[in-house]
Protein backbone atom coordinates (compact mmCIF):
# COMPACT_ATOMS: atom_id res chain seq x y z
CA UNK A 1 0.00 0.00 0.00
CA UNK A 2 2.74 2.41 1.02
CA UNK A 3 4.79 1.53 -2.06
CA UNK A 4 1.79 2.16 -4.31
CA UNK A 5 1.28 5.54 -2.70
CA UNK A 6 4.93 6.47 -3.19
CA UNK A 7 4.81 5.42 -6.84
CA UNK A 8 1.64 7.44 -7.30
CA UNK A 9 3.26 10.55 -5.76
CA UNK A 10 6.38 10.03 -7.89
CA UNK A 11 4.25 9.80 -11.02
CA UNK A 12 2.43 13.00 -10.17
CA UNK A 13 5.77 14.72 -9.53
CA UNK A 14 7.08 13.55 -12.90
CA UNK A 15 3.92 14.76 -14.68
CA UNK A 16 4.25 18.16 -12.98
CA UNK A 17 7.94 18.37 -13.96
CA UNK A 18 7.24 17.44 -17.59
CA UNK A 19 4.36 19.95 -17.77
CA UNK A 20 6.48 22.73 -16.28
CA UNK A 21 9.35 21.88 -18.62
CA UNK A 22 7.10 22.04 -21.67
CA UNK A 23 5.28 25.21 -20.63
CA UNK A 24 8.14 27.10 -18.96
CA UNK A 25 8.55 29.49 -21.88
CA UNK A 26 4.95 30.59 -21.52
CA UNK A 27 5.37 31.07 -17.79
CA UNK A 28 8.55 33.12 -18.18
CA UNK A 29 7.82 35.08 -21.35
CA UNK A 30 4.35 36.28 -20.44
CA UNK A 31 4.39 38.60 -23.44
CA UNK A 32 2.52 41.78 -24.20
CA UNK A 33 -0.50 42.08 -26.45
CA UNK A 34 -0.10 44.77 -29.11
CA UNK A 35 -1.52 48.13 -28.03
CA UNK A 36 -2.65 49.28 -31.46
CA UNK A 37 -4.34 52.46 -30.26
CA UNK A 38 -1.26 53.50 -28.30
CA UNK A 39 1.01 52.73 -31.26
CA UNK A 40 -0.82 55.23 -33.49
CA UNK A 41 0.34 58.10 -31.29
CA UNK A 42 3.92 56.81 -31.42
CA UNK A 43 4.19 56.44 -35.18
CA UNK A 44 6.64 59.34 -35.49
CA UNK A 45 8.99 57.71 -33.00
CA UNK A 46 8.88 54.24 -34.53
CA UNK A 47 12.27 52.65 -35.10
CA UNK A 48 11.85 49.17 -36.60
CA UNK A 49 14.91 46.96 -36.66
CA UNK A 50 15.67 43.65 -38.33
CA UNK A 51 17.56 41.31 -36.03
CA UNK A 52 18.45 37.81 -37.23
CA UNK A 53 15.65 37.91 -39.82
CA UNK A 54 13.06 39.02 -37.28
CA UNK A 55 11.44 42.42 -37.30
CA UNK A 56 11.67 44.05 -33.89
CA UNK A 57 9.22 46.78 -33.01
CA UNK A 58 11.00 49.70 -31.43
CA UNK A 59 11.04 53.40 -30.79
CA UNK A 60 13.49 56.25 -30.39
CA UNK A 61 12.36 59.25 -28.37
CA UNK A 62 14.00 62.59 -27.84
CA UNK A 63 14.66 63.24 -24.17
CA UNK A 64 15.09 66.36 -22.04
CA UNK A 65 18.66 67.32 -22.90
CA UNK A 66 19.25 67.33 -26.64
CA UNK A 67 22.64 69.00 -26.12
CA UNK A 68 24.18 66.03 -24.30
CA UNK A 69 26.02 63.21 -26.03
CA UNK A 70 24.34 60.46 -24.00
CA UNK A 71 21.75 58.05 -25.35
CA UNK A 72 20.01 55.22 -23.48
CA UNK A 73 18.83 51.76 -24.40
CA UNK A 74 16.00 50.39 -22.25
CA UNK A 75 15.21 46.68 -21.81
CA UNK A 76 11.88 45.85 -20.17
CA UNK A 77 10.43 43.12 -18.01
CA UNK A 78 8.90 39.84 -19.06
CA UNK A 79 5.35 41.19 -19.37
CA UNK A 80 6.18 44.63 -20.68
CA UNK A 81 5.34 46.41 -23.89
CA UNK A 82 8.18 48.89 -23.73
CA UNK A 83 6.20 51.54 -25.61
CA UNK A 84 4.56 52.16 -22.22
CA UNK A 85 7.92 53.35 -20.91
CA UNK A 86 8.51 56.05 -23.53
CA UNK A 87 6.86 58.79 -21.48
CA UNK A 88 9.13 57.88 -18.56
CA UNK A 89 12.27 57.69 -20.70
CA UNK A 90 11.53 61.18 -22.03
CA UNK A 91 12.11 62.51 -18.50
CA UNK A 92 15.77 61.49 -18.57
CA UNK A 93 18.25 64.32 -19.00
CA UNK A 94 19.94 62.68 -21.97
CA UNK A 95 19.81 63.16 -25.73
CA UNK A 96 17.50 60.31 -26.68
CA UNK A 97 16.39 56.82 -25.70
CA UNK A 98 15.83 53.64 -27.66
CA UNK A 99 13.69 50.70 -26.70
CA UNK A 100 12.52 47.58 -28.52
CA UNK A 101 9.95 44.92 -27.75
CA UNK A 102 11.34 41.41 -27.32
CA UNK A 103 10.50 38.83 -29.97
CA UNK A 104 6.84 37.89 -29.72
CA UNK A 105 6.02 40.99 -27.67
CA UNK A 106 3.79 43.68 -29.15
CA UNK A 107 4.34 43.58 -32.90
CA UNK A 108 7.85 42.11 -32.78
CA UNK A 109 8.14 38.94 -34.78
CA UNK A 110 9.27 35.51 -33.63
CA UNK A 111 9.46 33.75 -30.28
CA UNK A 112 11.55 34.84 -27.32
CA UNK A 113 14.33 32.83 -25.72
CA UNK A 114 17.32 33.81 -23.63
CA UNK A 115 19.75 33.37 -26.51
CA UNK A 116 17.59 35.20 -29.08
CA UNK A 117 17.02 38.11 -26.71
CA UNK A 118 20.76 38.35 -26.07
CA UNK A 119 21.49 38.26 -29.81
CA UNK A 120 18.90 40.98 -30.37
CA UNK A 121 20.48 43.09 -27.63
CA UNK A 122 23.80 43.05 -29.50
CA UNK A 123 22.00 43.99 -32.74
CA UNK A 124 20.20 46.83 -30.97
CA UNK A 125 23.52 48.08 -29.57
CA UNK A 126 25.02 48.16 -33.06
CA UNK A 127 21.91 49.91 -34.38
CA UNK A 128 22.26 52.61 -31.72
CA UNK A 129 25.99 53.02 -32.44
CA UNK A 130 25.16 53.48 -36.14
CA UNK A 131 22.28 55.88 -35.52
CA UNK A 132 23.89 57.96 -32.80
CA UNK A 133 27.58 57.94 -33.71
CA UNK A 134 29.92 59.43 -31.14
CA UNK A 135 27.35 59.21 -28.37
CA UNK A 136 27.93 57.54 -25.03
CA UNK A 137 25.51 54.72 -24.31
CA UNK A 138 23.72 54.14 -21.02
CA UNK A 139 21.97 50.78 -20.76
CA UNK A 140 18.91 50.46 -18.51
CA UNK A 141 17.25 47.16 -17.64
CA UNK A 142 14.20 46.47 -15.51
CA UNK A 143 13.43 43.07 -13.99
CA UNK A 144 14.14 40.42 -16.65
CA UNK A 145 15.56 43.25 -18.74
CA UNK A 146 18.26 43.73 -16.11
CA UNK A 147 19.78 40.41 -17.20
CA UNK A 148 19.66 41.55 -20.84
CA UNK A 149 21.25 44.87 -19.89
CA UNK A 150 23.87 43.04 -17.83
CA UNK A 151 24.64 40.72 -20.73
CA UNK A 152 25.08 43.67 -23.09
CA UNK A 153 27.28 45.46 -20.57
CA UNK A 154 29.45 42.34 -20.25
CA UNK A 155 29.92 42.10 -24.03
CA UNK A 156 30.12 45.67 -25.25
CA UNK A 157 31.65 48.95 -24.20
CA UNK A 158 29.01 51.12 -22.57
CA UNK A 159 29.16 54.35 -20.58
CA UNK A 160 27.00 53.34 -17.61
CA UNK A 161 24.63 50.57 -16.57
CA UNK A 162 21.41 50.97 -14.60
CA UNK A 163 19.67 47.91 -13.17
CA UNK A 164 16.15 48.32 -11.81
CA UNK A 165 14.85 45.53 -9.57
CA UNK A 166 17.51 43.18 -10.94
CA UNK A 167 17.07 39.46 -10.58
CA UNK A 168 19.91 37.15 -9.64
CA UNK A 169 18.74 34.36 -11.96
CA UNK A 170 15.54 32.65 -13.08
CA UNK A 171 16.46 29.39 -11.26
CA UNK A 172 16.81 31.39 -8.03
CA UNK A 173 13.28 32.74 -8.46
CA UNK A 174 11.96 29.26 -9.25
CA UNK A 175 13.71 27.96 -6.15
CA UNK A 176 11.66 30.30 -4.01
CA UNK A 177 8.36 29.82 -5.85
CA UNK A 178 8.55 26.01 -5.98
CA UNK A 179 10.46 25.28 -2.77
CA UNK A 180 13.42 23.49 -4.41
CA UNK A 181 11.11 21.01 -6.17
CA UNK A 182 12.23 22.00 -9.68
CA UNK A 183 15.78 20.92 -10.61
CA UNK A 184 17.83 23.77 -12.06
CA UNK A 185 18.81 21.56 -15.01
CA UNK A 186 15.22 21.71 -16.29
CA UNK A 187 15.27 25.50 -16.60
CA UNK A 188 15.91 26.41 -20.24
CA UNK A 189 16.25 30.19 -19.93
CA UNK A 190 18.37 30.93 -16.91
CA UNK A 191 19.19 34.65 -17.29
CA UNK A 192 21.99 34.33 -14.73
CA UNK A 193 22.72 37.96 -14.07
CA UNK A 194 24.57 37.02 -10.89
CA UNK A 195 27.21 35.28 -13.04
CA UNK A 196 27.30 38.02 -15.68
CA UNK A 197 27.78 40.63 -12.95
CA UNK A 198 31.40 39.65 -12.45
CA UNK A 199 32.14 40.55 -16.09
CA UNK A 200 30.56 44.02 -15.99
CA UNK A 201 33.12 46.80 -16.23
CA UNK A 202 30.85 49.83 -16.62
CA UNK A 203 29.94 51.92 -13.61
CA UNK A 204 26.63 50.53 -12.37
CA UNK A 205 23.63 51.84 -10.47
CA UNK A 206 21.29 49.31 -8.86
CA UNK A 207 17.87 50.52 -7.73
CA UNK A 208 15.64 48.24 -5.73
CA UNK A 209 12.04 48.64 -4.63
CA UNK A 210 11.72 47.80 -0.96
CA UNK A 211 8.16 46.49 -1.47
CA UNK A 212 9.13 44.29 -4.40
CA UNK A 213 7.09 41.08 -4.25
CA UNK A 214 8.23 39.70 -7.62
CA UNK A 215 11.99 39.72 -7.21
CA UNK A 216 13.02 39.48 -3.55
CA UNK A 217 15.36 42.25 -2.44
CA UNK A 218 18.02 39.76 -1.37
CA UNK A 219 18.21 38.48 -4.98
CA UNK A 220 18.89 42.02 -6.20
CA UNK A 221 21.41 42.53 -3.42
CA UNK A 222 23.12 39.25 -4.34
CA UNK A 223 23.56 40.56 -7.88
CA UNK A 224 24.74 43.93 -6.57
CA UNK A 225 27.38 42.29 -4.38
CA UNK A 226 28.83 40.45 -7.36
CA UNK A 227 29.23 43.46 -9.62
CA UNK A 228 32.95 44.02 -9.87
CA UNK A 229 32.94 47.57 -11.26
CA UNK A 230 32.24 50.85 -9.46
CA UNK A 231 28.71 50.59 -8.20
CA UNK A 232 26.01 52.36 -6.27
CA UNK A 233 22.89 51.03 -4.58
CA UNK A 234 19.68 52.98 -4.04
CA UNK A 235 16.63 51.66 -2.23
CA UNK A 236 13.25 53.22 -2.89
CA UNK A 237 10.85 52.78 0.01
CA UNK A 238 7.14 52.34 -0.79
CA UNK A 239 7.97 51.34 -4.37
CA UNK A 240 7.04 47.93 -5.69
CA UNK A 241 8.28 45.94 -8.65
CA UNK A 242 5.99 47.53 -11.19
CA UNK A 243 5.87 51.15 -10.10
CA UNK A 244 9.55 51.74 -9.39
CA UNK A 245 9.98 54.06 -12.36
CA UNK A 246 6.86 56.07 -11.62
CA UNK A 247 8.55 57.70 -8.63
CA UNK A 248 10.09 61.09 -9.37
CA UNK A 249 12.92 60.28 -6.97
CA UNK A 250 13.84 57.22 -9.07
CA UNK A 251 14.09 59.33 -12.20
CA UNK A 252 16.01 61.96 -10.25
CA UNK A 253 18.49 59.39 -8.96
CA UNK A 254 18.99 57.97 -12.47
CA UNK A 255 19.64 61.45 -13.87
CA UNK A 256 22.11 62.22 -11.10
CA UNK A 257 23.94 58.95 -11.69
CA UNK A 258 24.11 59.42 -15.45
CA UNK A 259 25.77 62.82 -15.07
CA UNK A 260 27.92 62.06 -12.02
Amino acid at each position, binding site marked *: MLISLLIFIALIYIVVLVTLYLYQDRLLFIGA*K*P*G*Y*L*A*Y*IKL*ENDTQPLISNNHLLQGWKVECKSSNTDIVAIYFGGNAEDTSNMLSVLKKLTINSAYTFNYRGYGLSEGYPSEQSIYQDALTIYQHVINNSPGHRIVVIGHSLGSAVAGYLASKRNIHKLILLSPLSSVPDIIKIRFKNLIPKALVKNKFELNKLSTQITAETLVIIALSDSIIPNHHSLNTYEKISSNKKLIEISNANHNNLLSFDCTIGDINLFIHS
Partner: protein
Amino acid sequence: MSADIELNWEWPADRVIEDRILIKITDIRKASSGLFGIKKSPSLANSLPDPQVISGVVVNSGSSIDTKSVKLVAPQLEIQEVKAGSYVMLGIVSSTICICIAPVDNKETDLSSISCP
Protein backbone atom coordinates in the same frame (compact mmCIF):
# COMPACT_ATOMS: atom_id res chain seq x y z
CA MET B 1 -12.28 34.74 -28.84
CA SER B 2 -9.71 37.48 -28.54
CA ALA B 3 -9.63 40.56 -30.74
CA ASP B 4 -6.81 42.82 -31.93
CA ILE B 5 -8.13 45.65 -29.79
CA GLU B 6 -9.82 44.72 -26.52
CA LEU B 7 -11.47 47.57 -24.67
CA ASN B 8 -12.87 47.79 -21.16
CA TRP B 9 -15.98 49.79 -20.41
CA GLU B 10 -16.00 52.46 -17.72
CA TRP B 11 -18.45 55.28 -17.11
CA PRO B 12 -16.97 58.67 -18.06
CA ALA B 13 -16.75 60.32 -14.61
CA ASP B 14 -15.92 63.73 -16.09
CA ARG B 15 -13.14 62.35 -18.28
CA VAL B 16 -12.60 63.75 -21.76
CA ILE B 17 -12.21 61.44 -24.75
CA GLU B 18 -8.66 61.09 -26.02
CA ASP B 19 -9.33 58.94 -29.09
CA ARG B 20 -12.36 58.36 -31.30
CA ILE B 21 -12.66 55.29 -33.46
CA LEU B 22 -15.42 54.22 -35.79
CA ILE B 23 -16.33 50.56 -35.85
CA LYS B 24 -18.77 48.48 -37.83
CA ILE B 25 -20.47 46.08 -35.45
CA THR B 26 -20.33 42.48 -36.52
CA ASP B 27 -21.94 40.86 -33.51
CA ILE B 28 -23.57 41.66 -30.19
CA ARG B 29 -24.31 38.97 -27.68
CA LYS B 30 -24.88 38.56 -23.99
CA ALA B 31 -21.68 38.11 -22.03
CA SER B 32 -21.21 34.73 -20.43
CA SER B 33 -22.27 34.74 -16.81
CA GLY B 34 -19.70 32.09 -15.94
CA LEU B 35 -20.01 28.92 -13.93
CA PHE B 36 -23.11 29.14 -11.68
CA GLY B 37 -23.47 32.79 -12.75
CA ILE B 38 -20.46 33.80 -10.70
CA LYS B 39 -19.43 36.56 -13.12
CA LYS B 40 -22.75 38.30 -12.49
CA SER B 41 -21.91 38.87 -8.85
CA PRO B 42 -22.24 42.59 -8.08
CA SER B 43 -19.41 42.06 -5.61
CA LEU B 44 -16.92 41.69 -8.45
CA ALA B 45 -15.26 45.00 -9.20
CA ASN B 46 -15.52 44.62 -12.97
CA SER B 47 -19.10 43.38 -13.07
CA LEU B 48 -21.40 45.37 -15.33
CA PRO B 49 -25.19 45.38 -15.34
CA ASP B 50 -26.54 43.18 -18.16
CA PRO B 51 -23.15 43.01 -19.94
CA GLN B 52 -23.08 42.62 -23.73
CA VAL B 53 -20.07 41.62 -25.82
CA ILE B 54 -19.75 43.92 -28.81
CA SER B 55 -17.54 42.70 -31.65
CA GLY B 56 -16.64 44.82 -34.64
CA VAL B 57 -13.96 46.04 -37.00
CA VAL B 58 -12.35 49.46 -37.24
CA VAL B 59 -13.35 51.36 -40.36
CA ASN B 60 -12.25 54.59 -41.96
CA SER B 61 -9.64 55.47 -39.36
CA GLY B 62 -7.05 56.44 -41.95
CA SER B 63 -4.39 54.76 -39.85
CA SER B 64 -2.77 51.39 -39.28
CA ILE B 65 -5.70 50.17 -37.17
CA ASP B 66 -8.13 49.99 -40.10
CA THR B 67 -9.75 46.52 -40.31
CA LYS B 68 -8.45 45.55 -36.86
CA SER B 69 -11.00 43.60 -34.84
CA VAL B 70 -12.42 45.18 -31.70
CA LYS B 71 -14.07 43.63 -28.67
CA LEU B 72 -15.81 45.53 -25.92
CA VAL B 73 -17.97 44.40 -23.03
CA ALA B 74 -20.46 47.13 -22.13
CA PRO B 75 -23.73 47.42 -20.21
CA GLN B 76 -26.90 46.96 -22.29
CA LEU B 77 -28.12 50.38 -21.17
CA GLU B 78 -25.21 52.10 -22.96
CA ILE B 79 -25.67 50.20 -26.21
CA GLN B 80 -29.22 51.41 -26.79
CA GLU B 81 -30.59 50.36 -30.18
CA VAL B 82 -27.26 49.45 -31.73
CA LYS B 83 -27.26 46.18 -33.64
CA ALA B 84 -24.99 44.11 -35.85
CA GLY B 85 -24.22 45.85 -39.14
CA SER B 86 -24.52 49.38 -37.74
CA TYR B 87 -21.74 51.88 -37.13
CA VAL B 88 -20.78 53.31 -33.76
CA MET B 89 -18.14 55.71 -32.55
CA LEU B 90 -16.22 54.60 -29.49
CA GLY B 91 -14.76 57.27 -27.25
CA ILE B 92 -11.56 56.07 -25.63
CA VAL B 93 -9.23 57.14 -22.85
CA SER B 94 -5.83 55.67 -21.93
CA SER B 95 -5.83 53.59 -25.12
CA THR B 96 -7.82 50.73 -23.57
CA ILE B 97 -10.85 52.21 -21.81
CA CYS B 98 -14.07 53.00 -23.65
CA ILE B 99 -16.20 55.66 -21.96
CA CYS B 100 -18.85 56.24 -24.59
CA ILE B 101 -20.65 54.51 -27.44
CA ALA B 102 -22.36 56.77 -29.94
CA PRO B 103 -24.33 55.38 -32.91
CA VAL B 104 -23.54 57.09 -36.25
CA ASP B 105 -25.42 56.97 -39.55
CA ASN B 106 -22.64 55.84 -41.84
CA LYS B 107 -18.91 55.37 -42.08
CA GLU B 108 -18.35 58.79 -43.66
CA THR B 109 -19.52 60.59 -40.51
CA ASP B 110 -17.20 63.27 -39.17
CA LEU B 111 -16.33 61.83 -35.75
CA SER B 112 -15.11 65.14 -34.34
CA SER B 113 -18.62 66.54 -34.63
CA ILE B 114 -20.12 63.91 -32.37
CA SER B 115 -20.78 64.87 -28.80
CA CYS B 116 -19.83 61.99 -26.60
CA PRO B 117 -20.65 61.42 -23.84
